C-alpha cells in the first residue's frame, strides 16, 4: 500500500470508530472497544522503549499505576479530568526518569529484571499504604458518560500512535534505533546512548501515565494497587510481540487481536485463557518474531509471487480501465 492509501485507510478507520457509539447502542461493545484503545496506548507506549529502543521494560505497570493515582487524586479534588490526565503523564515521566537513571546502567536481562523489581516494590508499597478501594463519589456516578470515556480513549490511542510515528521518523528516533542495533557503534557515531534511552523512556512513560489517567477516569471502583499489577506490563508486552515488536502498526493490530480473543476465551474457558496466551506468545517468539505484521507481509509476498508465476492471461480477458490493454 502506498503512503496515501495507508493514510486514507487510517482516516476511514478512525471515522468509523468515531461514529460507532452513535450507531451501536450496546454498552458491552463500547466497553470492549474502550479496552482495545487503552491496550493500544499501553502497548504502543511500551513499544517505544521496548521495541524501538530495545530496552525490555518489565515495569511499565508502575508508570500506568502512578498515572492512576495522580489523576484520581487531582480529579477528585476538583481538577478538570483532562488536566489531571496530562499531569498524570508528566508525573509518570518524572517518576520514570528517577528510576531510569540507575536502571539504564544495567544492560539486557539485568535491565528487564531491575525494572520488574522496582515495579513490584512500588505495587507492594501502594498496597500497604493504600489497602483500600477507590470509588467514584455519587455525584460523579450520576453524571457518568460512557461515550465520553470511549472518545477520550480513542483520541489518546490515536495520539499515541501519531507521536510514535513522528518520534521514530525524526533524527532522535534514528538515534534511538541505533542504540538498539548496536550501542557501541551508536556512541561511536555520535549518539549518546543514555540520552536517547531516557528520551524513549520519557515518551513511553508519559503515555503510560496518561493511560493511567484514562483508567482513573473510566473505572467506578478498584483497589488502588490494581493498576500496578504486573499483568498490565505483560499485556502490553504480549500485544506488542503478537502484533509486531518495533513496528508502528504492530501494537494496534496486536491490541485488537489480543483483546478480542481474550474476551472470547475468557467467556468460553474462563481462567484457562492465560495458558492459551502463554502458548500463542511462545509460538510467536519462536516461529514469527515479527508478529502478525510479519505474517501479513509474508502473505503479501506469497500472493505477489503466485501472481507472477501464473501464466499471463490472454489480452482480451484483461479488465477494462486498468491500463493494461496493449
Amino acid at each position: 500500500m502506498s503512503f496515501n492509501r495507508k493514510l486514507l485507510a487510517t482516516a476511514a478507520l478512525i471515522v468509523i470508530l468515531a461514529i460507532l457509539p452513535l450507531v451501536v447502542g450496546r454498552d458491552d461493545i463500547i466497553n470492549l472497544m474502550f479496552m482495545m484503545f487503552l491496550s493500544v496506548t499501553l502497548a504502543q507506549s511500551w513499544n517505544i522503549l521496548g521495541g524501538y529502543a530495545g530496552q525490555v521494560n518489565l515495569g511499565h505497570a508502575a508508570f500506568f499505576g502512578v498515572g492512576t493515582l495522580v489523576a484520581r487524586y487531582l480529579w477528585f479534588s476538583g481538577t478538570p479530568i483532562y488536566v489531571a490526565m496530562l499531569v498524570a503523564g508528566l508525573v509518570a515521566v518524572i517518576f520514570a526518569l528517577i528510576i531510569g537513571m540507575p536502571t539504564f546502567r544495567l544492560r539486557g536481562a539485568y535491565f528487564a529484571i531491575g525494572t520488574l523489581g522496582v515495579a513490584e516494590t512500588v505495587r507492594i508499597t501502594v498496597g500497604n499504604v493504600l489497602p483500600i478501594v477507590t470509588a467514584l463519589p455519587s455525584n460523579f456516578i450520576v453524571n457518568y458518560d460512557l461515550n465520553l470515556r470511549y472518545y477520550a480513549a480513542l483520541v489518546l490511542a490515536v495520539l499515541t500512535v501519531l507521536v510514535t510515528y513522528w518520534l521514530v521518523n525524526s533524527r532522535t528516533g534514528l538515534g534511538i534505533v541505533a542504540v538498539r542495533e548496536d550501542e557501541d557503534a551508536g556512541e561511536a557515531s555520535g549518539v549518546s546512548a543514555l540520552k536517547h534511552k531516557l528520551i524513549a523512556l520519557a515518551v513511553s512513560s508519559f503515555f503510560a501515565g496518561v493511560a493511567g489517567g484514562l483508567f482513573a477516569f473510566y473505572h467506578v471502583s478498584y483497589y488502588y494497587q490494581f493498576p500496578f499489577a504486573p499483568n498490565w506490563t505483560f499485556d502490553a508486552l504480549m500485544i506488542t510481540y503478537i502484533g509486531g515488536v518495533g513496528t508502528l502498526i504492530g501494537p494496534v493490530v496486536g491490541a485488537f487481536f489480543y483483546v478480542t480473543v481474550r474476551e472470547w476465551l475468557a467467556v468460553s474457558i474462563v481462567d484457562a485463557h492465560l495458558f492459551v496466551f502463554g502458548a500463542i506468545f511462545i509460538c510467536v517468539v519462536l516461529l514469527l518474531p515479527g508478529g502478525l505484521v510479519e505474517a501479513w507481509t509474508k502473505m503479501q509476498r506469497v500472493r505477489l509471487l503466485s501472481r507472477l508465476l501464473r501464466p499471463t492471461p490472454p489480452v482480451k480477458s484483461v479488465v477494462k480501465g486498468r491500463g493494461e490493454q496493449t
Partner: protein
Amino acid sequence: MLECEGIDVFYDDLQALWGVSLSVEAGEIVALIGSNGAGKTTILRTIAGLSKPAKGDIKFDGVSLSKKPAYDIVDLGIALVPEGRKLFGSMTVLENLELGAFTGRARGEKNATMKWVYEVFPLLEERRNQTAVTLSGGQQQMLAIGRALMSQPKLLLLDEPSLGLAPLVVQMIFDVIEQINQRGVSVLLVEQNAHAALERAARAYVVENGRVVGHDTGQNMLRHEHVKSAYLGGV
C-alpha cells in the same frame, strides 16, 4: 595531531594495555601490527572513547580525550570503523549513512559528504534503500567506512578492514583507504594483513601483550627481522 601518552586500560580487573604511547601526525597513515589479543583493538576503542584509560592521557589537537564520552569525540573529528563492522543491521544503507552524520558539525554538511561517499562507493548509492544485513561482507565494510566518513573525520580509525573479505575486495578497500588519506584524512590502521598495511603506512607500531614494543617507518618494518618472522610469515 593525536598523542597517546602512557595509557593503561583495564577490562574490569583485567589489564589490557600497559603504558601505551603512540602518535599520529596530520595526513599520515600509521599502522598497528601485532597478533590476536595483543591490544590493538583496545587501543582504537580507547582513542574513540569506548574504553577509558585508567592512567595516562590521549590528546587530539591539544584537547584531552580521556574524560570525554565517545559521542563527543566523534564531533572533534575522530571516527572509528569498528572490527566486525557493527552496522545498524535492520536499517537501510541510507539510514546508516545518516547516522554517521549525527553530530552537530557533520550534520550541516551531510548532503555534500554523502555525495563524496557515493563517489568513493558507487555501490552504496545503488543499494541505499536496502537494509544493511542484506549486504555482502565487502559491501558491509564499504558501508562501515562510508558511515565513518559521514562524520567528516580528521582521523579515521580502521579496525581490521580486510577481515573476512575476498582478495579482490581487500585490494579495493586498501585503495580506498589511500584515496581517503589523499583527501587529507589521517588514518590509524589495525590490520592482520601486516604486509599490505606496512606497504602503505608512513610509520608503524608493533604491539605485543598490551605494550608497544617497536616503532619504525613502514618500509623499515618490512625489512625488520623480528617483524618478518613474527608477522610477515618469514618472507
